């Protein structure tokens, strides 16, 4: 039976013993100190008492964080079929590039001539992504998919502003199956969000879309394949409708892995698209980041020869033929600007560079294909099994992921999607994404990616069936899960209550001292 490490690990702060230290930083030599004289700061701004940081030795730090890592779980530990997160294996050859210690010393303000290797790699990734997505120009500037989305929304805003009808075009349309980032990004751009429903066939409800599209449409944001794992069959009709109304089409590339090598957003008439290097291109997720969300555009004219490419955020890397050099080009006059101070999450881009080289076009397509085969194989294993249903067009093939519903299980036994998730954890399998998309009750969104073995897919299906059986035998069982993980079920009510919410140790200490009231 699988068991996760369960150390009684204190907080690093609780391990502190006065006078211990974990590092000896460089010190100025005597001559410097003598020449400069005693350290002086403006009296009103000197700190006085040192910050209350832990005093621990190096070996304690190493053991502490090593133990914490043993109480974490990633793709290196086992399957992580989190739908829409595309948790594929992170090949370590790419780490040889991304984690080379020399890169730690490269300052982003170094002259272009001194960083030609890095700039070439960034440039090549921009170029490859252009072909992969079927677009005309790319930048790897955004730090994550959500920044790519923000970039896209701001480009849509600038596009209409330059054409003089921004005051009319206040609406961005988003399907109700979309990731929460889409409406959130649209709102950050100052747009109003209109959601369109999904029909029983899993496609966008075309009648509802026709009613929503009009003179106030600034753009439409859509994921294809959708979060249901279904390819939007009417995508060309959707593009036509939005374009005819004068809006732009934004492609959320979160689910690109399901169609890579088979279909491209550019060919679907999208104007702007982002991709997630930490998904499709195998950059490790790092417990929630760093990510990287390059954004690509078609050379659609805005006004007077200015195209969407000129609106891209930056800086970008360009190749100067005359000089034979790669150059960093800062955002130009029409650009929506910078989304961060420096060029890119460079290490993530370098990881993707090595990954794409190793895969080649054939390998990338193969990854997409096998991810689709894995999904549909899993569906076949689960087909008609008691406790779970497959909502929306059950006979249509899924792409990268599938959304099952545990609604029948809940109806019969009371066990929820969350209970199912915890039951999977107990078997050493990470849970699916749950309760998303919102249009599926008791949703279990499962994405094995191409990295999972046939045997693990079978084990996952077997465990899901076992969970249903156990819940049927004794409906009280699921509530007791998980038992084999580091902690038992966590108390989320206490975690969020204004009287007990504890976002930092400082809050805990101040509260104990009676210096902090409830969060009001």
């Amino acid at each position, binding site marked *: 039976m699988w068991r996760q490490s369960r150390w009684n*690990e204190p907080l690093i*702060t609780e391990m502190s013993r006065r006078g211990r230290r974990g590092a000896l930083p*460089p010190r*100025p030599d005597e001559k410097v100190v003598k*020449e400069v004289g005693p*350290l002086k700061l403006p009296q*009103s701004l000197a700190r006085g008492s040192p*910050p209350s*940081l*832990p005093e*621990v030795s*190096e070996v304690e*730090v*190493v053991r502490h964080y090593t133990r*914490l890592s043993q109480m*974490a779980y*990633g793709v290196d530990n086992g399957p992580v079929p989190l739908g829409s997160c595309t948790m594929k294996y992170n090949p370590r050859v790419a780490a040889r590039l991304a984690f080379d*210690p*020399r890169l730690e*010393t490269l*300052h*982003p*303000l*170094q*002259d272009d001539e*001194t960083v030609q*290797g890095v700039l*070439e790699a960034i440039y090549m990734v921009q170029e490859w992504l252009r*072909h992969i997505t079927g677009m005309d120009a790319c930048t790897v500037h955004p730090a994550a998919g959500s920044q790519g989305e923000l970039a896209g929304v701001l480009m849509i805003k600038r596009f209409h502003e330059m054409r003089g009808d921004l005051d009319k075009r206040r609406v961005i349309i988003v399907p109700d199956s979309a990731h*929460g980032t889409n409406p*959130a990004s649209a709102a*950050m751009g100052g747009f109003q969000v209109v959601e369109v429903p999904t029909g029983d066939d899993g496609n966008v409800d075309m009648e509802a879309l026709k009613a929503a599209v009009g003179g106030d449409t600034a753009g439409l944001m859509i994921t294809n394949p959708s979060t249901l794992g279904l390819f939007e069959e009417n995508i060309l009709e959707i593009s036509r409708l939005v374009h005819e109304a004068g809006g732009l089409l934004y492609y959320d590339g979160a689910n690109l892995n399901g169609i890579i090598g088979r279909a*491209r957003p550019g060919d679907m008439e999208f104007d702007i698209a982002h991709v997630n290097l930490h998904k499709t291109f195998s950059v490790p*997720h790092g*417990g*929630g980041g760093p990510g990287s969300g390059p954004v690509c555009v078609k050379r659609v004219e805005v006004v007077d020869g200015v195209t969407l490419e000129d609106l891209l955020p930056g800086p970008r890397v360009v190749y100067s033929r005359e000089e034979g050099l790669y150059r960093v080009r800062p955002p130009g006059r029409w650009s929506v*600007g*910078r*989304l961060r*101070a420096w060029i890119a999450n460079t*290490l993530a881009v370098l990881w993707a560079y*090595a990954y794409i*080289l*190793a895969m*080649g076009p054939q390998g990338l397509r*193969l990854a997409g294909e*096998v991810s689709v*085969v*894995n999904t549909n194989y899993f569906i076949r*294993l689960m087909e008609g099994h008691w406790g779970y249903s497959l909502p929306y067009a059950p006979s249509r093939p899924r792409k990268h992921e599938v959304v099952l519903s545990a609604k029948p299980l809940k109806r019969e036994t009371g066990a929820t999607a969350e209970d199912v998730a915890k039951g999977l*954890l107990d078997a050493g399998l990470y*849970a699916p994404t*749950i309760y998303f998309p919102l249009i599926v009750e008791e949703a279990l969104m499962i994405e094995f990616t191409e990295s999972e073995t*046939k045997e693990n897919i079978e084990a996952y299906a077997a465990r899901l069936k076992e969970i249903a059986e156990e819940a049927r035998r004794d409906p009280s069982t699921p509530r007791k899960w998980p038992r084999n993980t580091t*902690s038992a079920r*966590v108390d989320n009510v206490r*975690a*969020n209550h204004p009287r007990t919410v*504890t*976002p930092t140790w400082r809050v805990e200490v101040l509260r104990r001292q009676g210096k902090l009231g409830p969060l009001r």
Partner: protein
Amino acid sequence: MLVYPQLEHPWIPNSHKAILDEMLEAIGVSSVDDLYRDIPPTILLSPEEWDSLPIGEGRPLSEAEVLARINDILSRNKYFTDPPPFVGGGVWPRYVPSVVKALITRGEFLTAYTPYQAEISQGLMQALFEYQSLVAELLEMEVVNASLYDWSSAVGEAMLMARRVTRRNRVLVPETMNPLHLETATTYAYGGGIRVEKVRVDRETGFIDLEDLESRLSQGDTAALYMEYPSSYTGVIDENVEAAGEAVHKAGGLFILGVEPVSMAILKPPGRLGADIAVGDGQPLGLGLNYGGPYLGVFAVRWDGRLVRQMPGRLIGMTVDAEGRRAFAMILQTREQHIRRAKATSNITTNEALMAIAAAVYLSLLGPQGLREVAEASWYMSHYAAKRLSELRGVEAPLLEGEFIMDFTVRLPMDAGVARRRLLEKGVLAGIPLGGFSFFSDNDMLLTVTEAHTRRHVDLLVNLLDSVLGG
């Protein structure tokens, strides 16, 4: 010719033909193509069309071939290690203890995702909680999120937050604000319909002009004042910071302070200066420069529900599990986009979690004494450099009177851009030329000296500059 047979790849276990055929048969289709039958034929790519695209080298490479490309890429950069770059600008060359990378490259941290399942992610969440807690002590702010992207986008998010909290549209910044931070914040402001306005800065001291600030505040619609402390573009520790904060509070706006975290070991932290929101870059906390990132956006607020509930980004909190043992969970998620959608405080999902763990490791290693030593060493080395430079004929260093810790401005008797190029020819990466930045002249340069520089490094810079100046 392919290196690998048509249908096999070491990273794709089911790509073996026999396995794939077995699975396709179970699915009930005769080929993979059947699974793409819902894609309109006009946009469906054939394998031939796709394979002909210039992606990678046009074919899969073996690991040995990839390594050869990697070595090529790495060998075509110039690495400034002796001396390190004399360049800051919001990120700095700093000493990074070896332990940091050893711990963050552990597979359990490196390959994990956002801790959506608390019970199996306790170690990850405790590490992030520790990051939040350590930064909270450093800044003396009660609530710290589990990271944003970088300093500049954290400023943008802070401005949007100030707008939500105050329902006002105007944000004030000093005219010496780091231009890259300003550019990013302006991009965010464009989305949120915020107007960014510059406040005058004294040309002698580098301090914010309190009179100009007051007169702008008297117009009454200010959402926030943003200041940096120390300034990442003049290096100056602004002695008017507390008074400026009081002034904006009196006018009903928020006070946002951008800080360099290491300096906070010896400077009065933002929590004691009345800041409502503190932002900054965690890059100095063990991350290395890495040509642009990943870095780490620090974001903190004080204990006020109005502020905490409007915070962008992820928060980890302490709670208990069903057995009554200490446990950790993602908290206050109703602020986040996956629940609130268009009403979320931000669209951020993927953040910089791994970098936050690196910062936690760094702060644990350094502790109060070590961090103080790093800050002090930076102060000594930079003051040594300023003193030596001021001895050169025609060089004014520091240019501004305000006290500094590691960044300072100098005025050279020649164009700073030209001086930088000449120094580069001699193998030294000198500071940022400030020409084109209206506050400064073309002869001005921002120089950076930290604990990563030795006396020998500084002497080398001074001697080479002397020869560049024709001394």
